[in-house]
């Protein structure tokens, strides 16, 4: 296959075998960086899911939060009174407004003294959802019922029909399902009235904390009139402090690892290409085109990167699957394949820096005793 490309791999492949120690070393470095990036990506994905998976299930084009006078919007402190809700309901272009309450509290199975941190969602029964929505499916019919996410049920050790205690009141588990989390706590869904009472018992106002709004309104204008801010579900996540700090620091580490990867690969191939500058001059003197030599060099870098990234990726999937049983770790194309592609692209970019030695090599130096 490669032979059809002329010099590509004919020389590069033989150099890989000849200097296998050096290439194994750089391949191992690439594999280790891939493992690090993959693990950080998987962990970031897992932590992100434990922060936001329930928020992303809220049925609205925009999520509306209170806009404080002197600080940024926050899911934890937002409180929207009835006037604000009505202002959004009556705004031009708004099709539906679902008042949602979110508050963190504790819950325990009845007759036990082993509370578990949970996120209480107050959702109306009529909340519209496009397609299957694990959050809305947990909405109970009765103020004395609750729906539990799978992890909440596991943590509490309860099944459908069991009774749990939340802020001193008993509720019957009416439904269990969905991998739903909010700020690292599993989700329990209540009716709006039951949630309002629970919110007040833990020091809240009992008013909705976020509105899930659908429609095509003048979001900024309505927001300015009501001291609120309307964001898409994804952009609203910055109002989750834990998410912002975790993802910010982990994301920075991933970006730095990408940069290190490009630098390491670039430095290796720069030194390697400088070492073989004499050979490149000879090849040019014999009639090799600069283009074919560039392809040869990039092909060599690609082989090293593909092998290193492949090994690293296999390790990420294998170890990540094991880690997922004990850690919030996500093995998905987004946390494995995408970082691998970015690594390959940046690695090739790093290798491309070394090409100057190839393009500038003077075949004249092959003559005489210049080498």
């Amino acid at each position, binding site marked *: 296959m490669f032979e059809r*490309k002329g010099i590509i791999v004919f020389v590069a492949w033989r150099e890989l075998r000849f200097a296998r120690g050096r290439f194994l070393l750089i391949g191992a470095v690439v594999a280790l960086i891939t493992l690090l990036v993959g693990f950080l990506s998987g962990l970031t994905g897992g932590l992100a899911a434990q922060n936001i998976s329930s928020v992303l299930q809220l049925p609205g084009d925009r999520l509306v939060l209170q806009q404080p006078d002197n600080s940024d919007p926050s899911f934890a402190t937002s409180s929207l009174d009835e006037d604000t809700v009505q202002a959004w309901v009556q705004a031009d272009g708004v099709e539906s407004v679902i008042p949602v309450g979110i508050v963190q509290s504790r819950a325990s199975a009845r007759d036990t003294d082993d509370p578990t941190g949970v996120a209480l969602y107050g959702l109306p029964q009529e909340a519209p959802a496009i397609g299957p929505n694990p959050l809305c499916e947990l909405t109970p019919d009765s103020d004395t019922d609750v729906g539990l996410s799978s992890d909440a049920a596991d943590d509490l050790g309860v099944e459908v029909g069991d009774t749990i205690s939340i802020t001193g009141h008993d509720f019957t588990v009416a439904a269990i399902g969905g991998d739903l989390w909010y700020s690292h706590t599993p989700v329990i869904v209540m009716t709006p009235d039951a949630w309002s009472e629970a919110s007040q018992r833990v020091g809240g106002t009992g008013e909705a904390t976020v509105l899930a709004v659908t429609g095509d309104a003048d979001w900024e204008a309505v927001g300015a009139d009501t001291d609120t801010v309307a964001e898409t579900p994804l952009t609203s996540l910055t109002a989750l402090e834990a998410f912002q700090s975790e993802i910010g620091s982990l994301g920075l580490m991933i970006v730095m690892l990408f940069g290190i990867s490009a630098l390491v690969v670039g430095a290796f191939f720069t030194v390697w290409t400088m070492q073989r500058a004499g050979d490149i001059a000879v*090849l040019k003197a014999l*009639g090799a085109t600069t283009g074919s030599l560039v392809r040869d060099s990039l092909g060599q870098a690609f082989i090293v990167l593909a092998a290193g990234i492949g090994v690293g990726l296999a390790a990420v999937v294998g170890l990540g699957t094991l880690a997922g049983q004990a850690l919030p770790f996500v093995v998905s194309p987004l946390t494995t394949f995408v970082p691998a592609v970015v690594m390959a692209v940046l690695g090739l970019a790093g290798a491309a820096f070394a090409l100057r030695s190839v393009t500038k090599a003077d075949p004249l130096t092959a*003559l005489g005793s210049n080498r």
Partner: protein
Amino acid sequence: MIELQNVTLTFPDGDNHITAVDDVTLRGDNGTVTGITGPSGSGKSSILAVAATLIRPDSGGVLIGNESDLIDAAQLSKTDATELRRERIGIVFQQSNLLPALTAREQLQLMARLGGGSSRHRRGRIDTRVEELLDAVGLTEHADKRPHQLSGGQRQRVAIARGIVHEPEVLLVDEPTSALDQERGAEIMQLLARLTHERDTATLLVTHDLVHRDALDDLVTVIDGRITTPAAGHALTR
């Protein structure tokens, strides 16, 4: 055939220019080895560089080929000059300049793959000649060895085979015996002469060592960039 016609080559040196090749006219016919000798710095390697299209002369022509397809290599673009070297010129370097990662056989096979294109015809033609040439230079049993596993003479023989494996019309040889003892040097010179005659190649050979002059058909001497004896080829000083 290769013919340098009134070639002049200068190099910048501060505000001045140094004349490395001064109005040189030189002809190498098919089937002959033309030696170019002279003291160090006389310009003989510069003549070879111009002949190899590695550097463009300030003036003059470098004619390569036969009457039916004669081209002036001095007028070619870089791309065309590269193609000319690949297709019609063979070069044997002073230090053999073999690629360390390639075996002796692969050094020759490389010549079929330099273009980066997919000329199967060219590759097939060259590949069929590899074994024949390895045999011709006496290296069949060393074909799978890399340069560091070969002696200096063996390396130079591989370089000679590499220089002619693609059947060039012109073979340019730069000090092929400088790193060899006298006995090995004589072997290399005889090999070059034999292959030149057998394959009807026009060979220009730069050497400062006239111990092996018997292998040459013509010999010119270069001093200060000028040919002093004789004015053109065909007058071997023996």
